């Protein structure tokens, strides 16, 4: 672990913040690249990208009240959004907020279909980079105690699961798969993003068992409940979509 990467004239530069910044820049670059490759008109790209970005950051902050409890509510004000001393929040809330923001923007501009597949590989790679920052920062104690040989010691006298690295390893593999599938005929019109979200939700559900997040209901953390709701929603969408295709 290395929470402070280096110092500039006595001012610490934090690993968590550096990798958060790198993750955002990587996501924006990849989305712009994909948008260009897909010949996505700039008139549509600008509002959807802006709405997705703002929705993602606001969603990450808002969701933290559900995941971490009411004691975090004072950090969910307008001004707190712009306080870099407070962490960015939850990636799951960020994904939800970005999706809702992008969806509202695309409906508002009357866009037919969905160009959101451009976001799928970017989200996977951005998440992988962000998780390295979480690992270096030792955020939330990293994971539950373990005796496995790859356990790490984040300032304790016992080993814990390097849970952010599990997440990052999956994200890199998932990014490569999404890039390979991005031109597949069955993965167009929003399907690639839904596939990407479903895959991440399944893996995140299991990674949560070795993390230190707050248990909310029937032994499950808020993040696991979010993943289950997301998977159920995608399942309902899939069934309804199949019915529509069958009747068409």
């Amino acid at each position, binding site marked *: 672990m290395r929470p402070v990467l280096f110092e500039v004239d006595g001012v610490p530069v934090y690993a968590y*913040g550096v990798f958060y910044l790198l993750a955002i820049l990587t996501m924006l670059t990849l989305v712009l690249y994909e948008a260009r490759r897909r010949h996505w008109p700039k008139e549509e790209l600008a509002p959807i990208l802006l709405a997705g970005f*703002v929705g993602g*950051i606001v969603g990450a902050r808002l969701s*933290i009240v559900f995941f971490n409890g009411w004691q975090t509510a004072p950090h969910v004000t307008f001004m707190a959004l712009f306080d870099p001393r407070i*962490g960015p929040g939850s990636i799951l809330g960020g994904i939800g907020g970005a999706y809702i923001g992008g969806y509202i923007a695309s409906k508002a*501009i009357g866009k037919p279909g969905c160009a959101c597949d451009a976001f799928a590989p970017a989200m996977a790679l951005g998440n992988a980079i962000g998780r390295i920052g979480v690992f270096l920062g030792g955020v939330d104690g990293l994971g539950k105690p373990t005796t496995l040989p790859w356990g790490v010691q984040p300032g304790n006298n016992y080993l814990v699961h390097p849970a952010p690295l599990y997440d990052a390893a999956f994200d890199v593999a998932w990014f490569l798969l999404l890039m390979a599938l991005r031109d597949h005929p069955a993965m167009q019109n929003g399907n690639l993003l839904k596939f990407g979200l479903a895959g991440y939700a399944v893996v995140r559900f299991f990674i949560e068992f070795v993390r230190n997040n707050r248990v909310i209901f029937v032994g499950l953390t808020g993040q696991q409940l979010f993943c289950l709701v997301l998977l159920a929603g995608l399942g309902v969408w899939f069934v309804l979509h199949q019915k529509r295709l069958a009747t068409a």
Partner: protein
Amino acid sequence: MNFLRPPYTTVEEKRRDLWAGVIGWFAINAILVVVTLAGWVPAWVGVVQLVANIALIVLFAFTRRYVAIGALWAFAVALIATVIDAPAGTAACFAVASGSGCGEFGCNSACAVGFGFGFLVGLIPGYFILRGVHRRLGK
């Protein structure tokens, strides 16, 4: 101000709304931030401000689209400043911030300087995006 007006008929209307969104967002939020920091209004106004920001942008998205795009642009530039400032200030996540307070992670002056720097850096690509949208409206 007519919030629910018919669709745009001229380029000038679109441009006026775009800039109204940008300037209005900064002006109204700056006033609210100042009165909150001065302690003239209770802290919960910050929550209302956040909810109102989202609600108004969504409302404008379906009624006066270019006001919403302008406000979103301003919101995004301010958030980019925070993201750029993150390496100087973000040491931990909410779990720590809510428990022991975040004062020990990064000093206020470094964060303030970082935010100012981030804001200027964010404005550079932001300016070109806004100029692109503004020019494209005329085509």
